[in-house]
């Protein structure tokens, strides 16, 4: 019996040597999906993707973009910075519209200032409820009824009325 076991072990050692030899070859030739370099690349690209999606690194912008190998973001982020002509603050292009909404309404909470045209539009929409032109609206639901053109649009409509009342 011992003899058989010894023979068996000899066969086994031979097969172990074969496996080791093959794995050694794969390792040295870098056949196994690139044991180090490619693996490093894969890991790095995963990390890059993870950090691109990481909110802490994206600042104000909503963190739903990916960064490609050129550093460009997709979808593109308008990150050019310029000065707001209203308040003079440096603003990111992609944040300019919402900034203007608040910036133009300074002095009160945002969106409570009404303009002549927005009030007229509102009265037209609400069918007869009397609206005085410069009366502030205390609840936000009314401002939700305001059509797009008045608050979110270009600053033109506001430009002549915005600073009229504190």
């Amino acid at each position: 019996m011992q003899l058989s076991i010894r023979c068996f072990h000899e066969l086994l050692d031979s097969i172990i040597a074969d496996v080791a030899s093959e794995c050694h070859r794969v390792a040295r030739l870098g056949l196994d999906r690139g044991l180090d370099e490619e693996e490093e690349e894969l890991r790095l690209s995963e990390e890059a993707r993870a950090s691109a999606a990481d909110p802490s690194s994206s600042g104000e912008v909503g963190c739903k973009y990916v960064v490609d190998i050129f550093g460009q973001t997709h979808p593109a982020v308008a990150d050019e910075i310029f000065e707001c002509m209203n308040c003079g603050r440096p603003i990111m292009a992609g944040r300019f519209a919402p900034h203007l909404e608040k910036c133009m309404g300074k002095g009160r909470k945002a969106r409570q200032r009404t303009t002549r045209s927005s009030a007229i539009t509102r009265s037209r929409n609400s069918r007869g409820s009397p609206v005085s032109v410069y009366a502030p609206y205390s609840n936000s639901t009314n401002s939700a009824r305001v059509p797009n053109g008045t608050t979110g649009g270009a600053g033109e409509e506001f430009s002549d009325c915005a600073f009229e009342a504190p």
Partner: protein
Amino acid sequence: MRASINRPPTPDADEEPEREPALVEVINVKMVESGEKEKLKELLRERLIECGWRDEMKALCRAYARKKGRNNVTIDELVQVITPKGRASIPDSVKTELLQRIQSFLTSIVL
């Protein structure tokens, strides 16, 4: 002095203890000659592939190579890495089958 000149070559065989090794050698030779050794080896290899043993060993090697840096491994190191686990993780069925075949071969050459 003449004795030293005429001294016969050192007989290695005499210094070896008389134990199994000699018998194993005989068996080995018989196995090789009859082609049985090759057949057994093929059988064992096939069984080990089937049961995933070979993949396990390859995974061990890969992990070791990754850790050490793939250009820093030698075949000897890999053999040392796999052998203990390899010997221990042979499925019993495989071992039994091979041992049976070896046994029957031994009895066949004795008879």
